[in-house]
């Protein structure tokens, strides 16, 4: 299920529409994940406020989307491009990789809400594949 040339084109074109709303989208996706999949809160026990739209959630949503934007730029070689991030997640954060799928789903839901006309089924499949590829690259250093 690797990214075809067409997938990469589709993702880059769609990303151009995401960019102006990226921080909002990141914040919404993260908020949503913490509410809909409460087991993910276990990774953020050190935050004072885990409620949707809180300051730590806003900040971290922007950080995450920054990471995804970086991945878009490095779409031709995600494994080496995301090496540092993979080490971070593997050795420091130690996030169970199953959660990457959960966050990806929430990002897709927010795309459907914020960009309903652009998030067509064809874009959906390309972006889903892309986020899965990002998850794989992030898992690279785990074991």
């Amino acid at each position, binding site marked *: 299920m690797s990214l075809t040339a067409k997938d990469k084109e589709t993702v880059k074109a769609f990303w151009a529409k995401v960019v102006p709303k990226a921080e909002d989208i990141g914040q919404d996706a993260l*908020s*949503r994940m*913490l*509410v*809909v*999949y409460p087991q993910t809160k276990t990774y953020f026990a050190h935050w004072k406020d885990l409620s*949707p739209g809180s300051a730590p959630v806003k900040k971290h949503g922007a950080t995450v989307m920054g990471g995804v934007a970086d991945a878009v730029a490095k779409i031709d070689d995600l494994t080496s491009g995301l090496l540092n991030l993979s080490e971070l997640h593997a050795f420091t954060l130690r996030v169970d990789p199953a959660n990457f799928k959960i966050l990806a*789903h929430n990002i*897709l*839901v*927010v795309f*459907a*809400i914020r960009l*309903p006309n652009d*998030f*067509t*089924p*064809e874009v*959906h*499949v390309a972006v*889903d594949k892309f986020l899965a590829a990002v998850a794989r690259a992030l898992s690279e250093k785990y074991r």
Partner: protein
Amino acid sequence: MVKWTDFERATIQDIFSKIDYEVVGPAAFSRCLIVYPWTQRYFGGFGNLYNAAAITSNPKVAAHGKVVIAGLEKAVKNMDDIKSTYKDLSVLHSEKLQVDPDNFNLLADCLTIVVAGQMGAAFTPEVHAAFQKFLAVVVASLRKQYY
């Protein structure tokens, strides 16, 4: 037995009263066939599923999308006992249709995305959570009779 809060109960009824079944059923089902193409394995008799455009305009796909959402409505009307409401449907999917139950989650994800698109900002995290819980109960009930 599943316990529903007043908010969850009201939210599920509200969502299903607001969405257009004729649109949501076909949209969710066709999206599933497009995004997860291996799900097409169960629909050999549906004719042209060659690409996204063909799937979206396929009348058998649209018709089946409506069948699926009509099935969901049964759960909406029997929220306090989805498990027994779905007993026969579960047997059908297991014995006759022989559908890998992991596919139920794929369709559920597509349904969530389509409903989110329809409802926009009204699909808040809390509403999303209620909908997710509902779908999880539906999927578990459909899996129940598999052995």
